[in-house]
């Protein structure tokens, strides 16, 4: 029973992270019709920057301040996005979508090595944050309190994103542009600015995922590439361009993964990809998607 609770909590924890990555991917696709292959790498970048910042500051500041440093990774990634979109993506909007896809692959290669250059090949941790919160008992076992914080942040982020997209003026603009770019432009919306901000937001969310996971899980090279595939699975199941889909998909994938690792470790990933393939066959737009 206690194992079940632990695994349940783990699933939600993992789902929170996955949701953040997938939501960003979905947002960027929904608004800009771009599949960003470097998206996982942005997640990794967020993890690295946050781990690095916390590592640098750990000796000299107290724990509460260190917590405030958590979002640093997300901000850094968003800033990178603000530079990348106008410089690299904008010139390609009139070309077939395959070109940008290829460009993001190139971006992935570049960013992976940028991270290696900046942060070296060794894993970076921010474990001090996790340790500081200690653990709480679950039926005789101990569970890290930090994970609950992650779940909380994930839920908060989901709420904020939802509110932003569906309740703010910019959210309306975002949705309008995603549905009909030409129409939006004809109505006087600055599509270029919308794209730039949408991309930055998508990057921010991915970076946030990396930032909040790193105290629990060290930043390692290659984490982005692995994360991207899972994010893809989430988005395929949940639906490209859908926020609710990203959430449901993340929960589904997370639970299947956790159960799989527990009971069928060899094929848990294979099962996941197969589920994605099956969803693509039955309902290509995903459970909630709009293409």
């Amino acid at each position: 029973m206690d194992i079940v609770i632990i695994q349940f909590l783990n699933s939600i924890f993992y789902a929170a992270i996955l949701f953040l990555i997938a939501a960003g991917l979905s947002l960027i696709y929904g608004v800009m019709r771009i599949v960003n292959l470097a998206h996982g790498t942005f997640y990794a970048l967020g993890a690295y920057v946050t781990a690095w910042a916390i590592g640098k500051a750990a000796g000299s500041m107290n724990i509460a301040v260190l917590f405030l440093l958590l979002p640093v990774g997300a901000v850094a990634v968003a800033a990178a996005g603000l530079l990348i979109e106008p410089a690299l993506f904008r010139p390609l909007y009139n070309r077939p979508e395959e070109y940008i896809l290829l460009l993001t692959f190139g971006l992935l290669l570049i960013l992976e090595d940028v991270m290696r250059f900046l942060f070296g090949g060794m894993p970076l941790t921010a474990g001090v944050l996790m340790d500081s919160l200690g653990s709480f008992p679950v039926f005789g076992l101990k569970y890290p309190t930090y994970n609950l914080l992650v779940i909380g942040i994930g839920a908060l982020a989901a709420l904020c994103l939802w509110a932003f997209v569906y309740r703010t003026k910019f959210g309306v603009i975002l949705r309008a542009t995603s549905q009909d770019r030409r129409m939006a432009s004809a109505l006087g919306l600055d599509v270029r600015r919308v794209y730039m901000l949408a991309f930055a937001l998508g990057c921010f969310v991915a970076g946030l995922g990396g930032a909040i996971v790193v105290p629990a899980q060290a930043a390692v090279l290659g984490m982005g590439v692995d994360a991207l595939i899972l994010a893809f699975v989430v988005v395929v199941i949940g639906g490209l361009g859908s926020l609710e889909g990203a959430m449901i998909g993340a929960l589904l994938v997370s639970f299947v993964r956790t159960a799989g690792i527990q009971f069928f470790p060899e094929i848990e990933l294979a099962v996941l990809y197969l589920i994605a393939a099956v969803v693509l066959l039955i309902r290509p737009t995903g459970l909630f998607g709009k293409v």
Partner: protein
Amino acid sequence: MMNLLQPGAEGVSVGRSLALALPVVVVLAVVPQLIDSYQTQLLTYGLIFGIAALGFNLLLGYTGLLSFGHSAYFGLGAYAAAFMVRYLGVGSMELYILGGLVITAVVTAAFGFVCVGYTRIFFGILTLALSQVLWTLAYKFFWVTGGTDGIRVPYRTMTLLAGAVDFSGPRSYQRFIGAYYYYVLGLFVACVALMWVIVHSPFGKALQAIRDNETRARFLGIGIRRYRWIAFMISGAFTGLAGILWVPLNGLVTPEIVYWPFSGEIVFMSVLGGFRSFTGPIVGAIVFNYLKTYAVASTEYWQAALGIVLVILVMALPTGIVGAVSRLAWRRGAESGGSGDQP
């Protein structure tokens, strides 16, 4: 009008293509006599990737489908050969090719059947997902596939040409590299010739029609799904053959060759050479192979180097090397009083 390097252009004739191809084949046949063993090996890899890219581009350049899962077929070929070594004790290259092609054919038929119902981004993601299924199987079922340690495919116990050529005895490695180069070259020439006929056949024209205008193709009576499926299988077979040829040279097969970034490399090769031309992907594969080898040797950050090349390519040179060269040649032709048609 554009020269024979552009798919679909008129004026293509067997004679002219042979005239252009023959000197290249001669050069390729002579080159190993002039370079050392390492360079020969490098060029062999280039030819092998050329076959892979050639197959890949049937889908992209000619049918308009961007597959992000071709590492699956390459890996299938490689693992098939490796399994034959490990579990059947087979040493004959011809048997590797036969067995590998059969396995690749079955899987590409299944994968392809599923994938060709979809286009553009969904096609890409589906091919990616399916290739990842294969990757996890290779990775996780380590007692069958050797996991990350992989399976060795030694050249010493291998034979070519139904046993006529073997590699036991002294200086076997040099002999292997030398003989294997010509073996691969022979298959390379055969593959290029075969693909050339395919893309210039009525079937090839139908594929291009499907690429250009699916609706009109349907209204001409061309069964879109069936043609794409056939193209998918041919494409997978070529890339699978490349995998089979690759593994004895590499000596080892690991799941990395099935992991999705290798699919990205195959795409990279085709784009580098120019996916809108017949020879582009071949040129791209050979150039990419040199590029990657020298990048890996020169810098720890070779991935970034390749990434920068790709970004520049996409932004400045979308028609790739061959496209740029033929544009240059066309412009020269126009300057000296050529035809009035624009490219």
